[in-house]
C-alpha cells in the first residue's frame, strides 16, 4: 500500500489538533479519514488500535500522577474488554470472509457517529440558545443504580469508587469498549465516559483516567489479535499518525483557549456529522466500478 508519508502526517496533525481543542480521543476521525485516503478499512482499524495504545498511555500518566485512576474497576472492565475484543475479532474475521467487512465498518460508523454527533449538536445548540450550559449531570446522578442493575449477581465492592455493584456492569461496559476497538478502531470514550458516570455511578473525577487505563490494555490486546489474525497492523503508518498527532495536539491545546463550551461542542458535532455524511455518501452513491477484487 503506497500512501504519501506527508498525507499521513497531516492527517495525524489534524486529528491531534481536533483532539487537543476538544479533549476527545480522535480515533473516530482517524479511521474514516484513513479509509477516505484509500487505506483498506481492515488496515485502518488494525493500525488505529496500536495508535490508541500510544495516545492512551500519554493520557493516563497525567491522571495516574494525580491518583485519578481506579485500577480495580479498570481491571474488571478490562476483563470484559478482552472478551469483547475476541468477540469483535471473530465478527471481523467472519465479515471479512463474507466480503462484508467494509460495509460493516461503514455502517457502524454511520450509526454511532450519526447518533452521537446528532445528540451533541442538539444539546449544544439548545444550550447555546438558552445562553448557559444546562447542568445535565445533576439530573442523572440520582439514577445511580437502576433496579435491573442492582439485581445482577456477583456483587463486588470497589472501595476507591465507593461502589457496591455487580462485576457484570463494569465488565459489560468493558465488553462494549473491546468490541468498538476491535471492529472500529475507536476507544469509545464518547460512550464509555457517560456509561461509567450514569450506569456505573463512578465519581466523575475518576472516570477519564480509569477509562483510559482500560482502553490502553484493551487496544493493546486488540492490536496483537489484529496482527496475528489478519496482518492488518502497519507500524510505520502508526508512527507517522502518532508524530503528527502529538504535534497537532500541542497546537490544538493552544487553540482550545479561544473556543470553549457549547460553541466548541457545536463545531465538534459538525465535524463528526460531516465525516458520518461522507461515509454515507460513499455507501449510497453509485460507484464508478461495480466490481471489487479482494486478494
Amino acid at each position: 500500500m503506497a500512501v504519501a508519508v506527508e498525507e499521513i502526517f497531516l492527517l495525524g496533525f489534524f486529528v491531534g489538533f481536533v483532539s487537543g481543542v476538544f479533549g476527545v480521543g480522535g480515533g473516530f476521525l482517524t479511521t474514516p479519514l484513513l479509509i477516505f485516503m484509500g487505506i483498506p478499512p481492515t488496515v485502518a482499524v488494525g493500525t488505529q488500535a496500536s495508535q490508541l495504545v500510544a495516545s492512551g498511555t500519554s493520557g493516563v500518566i497525567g491522571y495516574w500522577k494525580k491518583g485519578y485512576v481506579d485500577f480495580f474497576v479498570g481491571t474488571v472492565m478490562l476483563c470484559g474488554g478482552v472478551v469483547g475484543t475476541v468477540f469483535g475479532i471473530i465478527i471481523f474475521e467472519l465479515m471479512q470472509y463474507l466480503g462484508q467487512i467494509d460495509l460493516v465498518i461503514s455502517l457502524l460508523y454511520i450509526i454511532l457517529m450519526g447518533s452521537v454527533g446528532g445528540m451533541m449538536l442538539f444539546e449544544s445548540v439548545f444550550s447555546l440558545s438558552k445562553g448557559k450550559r444546562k447542568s445535565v449531570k445533576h439530573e442523572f446522578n440520582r439514577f445511580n443504580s437502576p433496579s435491573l442493575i442492582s439485581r445482577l449477581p456477583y456483587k463486588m465492592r470497589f472501595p476507591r469508587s465507593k461502589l457496591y455493584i455487580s462485576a457484570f456492569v463494569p465488565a459489560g461496559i468493558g465488553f462494549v469498549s473491546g468490541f468498538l476497538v476491535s471492529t472500529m478502531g475507536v476507544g469509545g470514550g464518547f460512550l464509555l465516559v457517560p456509561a461509567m458516570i450514569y450506569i456505573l455511578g463512578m465519581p466523575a473525577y475518576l472516570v477519564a483516567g480509569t477509562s483510559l487505563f482500560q482502553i490502553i490494555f484493551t487496544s493493546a490486546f486488540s492490536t496483537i489479535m489484529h496482527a496475528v489474525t489478519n496482518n492488518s497492523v502497519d507500524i510505520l503508518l502508526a508512527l507517522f499518525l502518532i508524530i503528527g498527532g502529538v504535534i497537532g495536539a500541542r497546537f490544538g491545546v493552544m487553540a482550545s483557549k479561544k473556543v470553549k463550551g457549547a460553541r466548541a461542542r457545536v463545531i465538534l458535532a459538525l465535524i463528526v456529522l460531516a465525516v458520518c455524511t461522507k461515509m454515507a455518501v460513499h455507501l449510497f452513491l453509485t460507484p464508478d466500478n461495480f466490481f471489487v477484487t479482494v486478494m
Partner: protein
Amino acid sequence: MRVAVFSRLALLVVSTVFFIMNTNAAYAQDIRTGDHLVTQVSNDFIDVSAGFGGAVIDLFGDRNDANTDVAIVVEGPKRRVTIWQKEQVMGAWVNRYFVSFDSVPVFYSYALDKRDFIINNSELSEKHNVGIEALFKEEQIRKSRSIDDIEVFRNALVEERKNLGVFPQAPEMVEFLNPYFFRARFKIPQSVPTGEYKIHTYLVKDGAIIDRAVQAVSIKQVGINGLFLRMAKENSFFYGLGCILFAFIAGWFVSAVRVKV
C-alpha cells in the same frame, strides 16, 4: 514351483524396466531440456526499497533452430482472488455476488515472437499458461450460486490488473538480434507484489514443444519497510508485541515531554 517364482520375478523386473523407460520417454517428450534452448535473465533479483520506481527484466535466449517459435511466460506467486459484484440493497451499494479463482498470479506477462501463434496451440495455453485466458482454469472457480456467467467477473479482474500494470495490455514481442539469439523485455511496475517469479521459455516446432527452460527472479522488499513487512507476516505475534511496546514508549515519551515544557 521354483520356475513359477522366477517367472513372476522376471515379469516384475521387465514390467518395472518398461515402466521406467515409458515414463522417461514421456518426460523427454515433454521437456527435453538443454538440447535446443539456453536462456539467461538480466537480473535474478530486484530489491524494492523506498522510492522504487519500477524495474525491467530482460530475458536473453539462444536457440539452435531458426525454424521454431518462442513463447515466454513470466509469473509471480499465485493467490486466491475474489471478485465481488456490487448491488443496491436498500439504497446502499453492497458486495452481493462473488466469483473466486483459486490461484491467480499476482503478476503475469508473456512474450511471443509472432503475435498469434498460440491460438492454434492448445498445449501452450492450457498446460503452460501462455495467454491471459489460460490463467483462469475451470476447476479452480468458486462462485455465488445464482451466478452463471463468470465472464464479466473475469473481465473486471483482468481490466483492473491491466490498469495496475501487473497484467499485460498485449503480449510483449520477442526480438531477434540474429536468427538464433533473442531478447524479451518485461516491465515491472512500481507497485509490484514481492515474491519468487518464474520465467518459462518454450521452443515450439510444428506445433509441438521441443524444448523449454526456466529462470527465476526474486523480488524482495528491502530496507526498514521490508523488515517490518517480513516480521508482520512471519512473526505476527512478536510484531504485534513490538507495535504495542513502541506505542507505550511513544505515549510515555509524549507525556514526559509535556510535563517538562
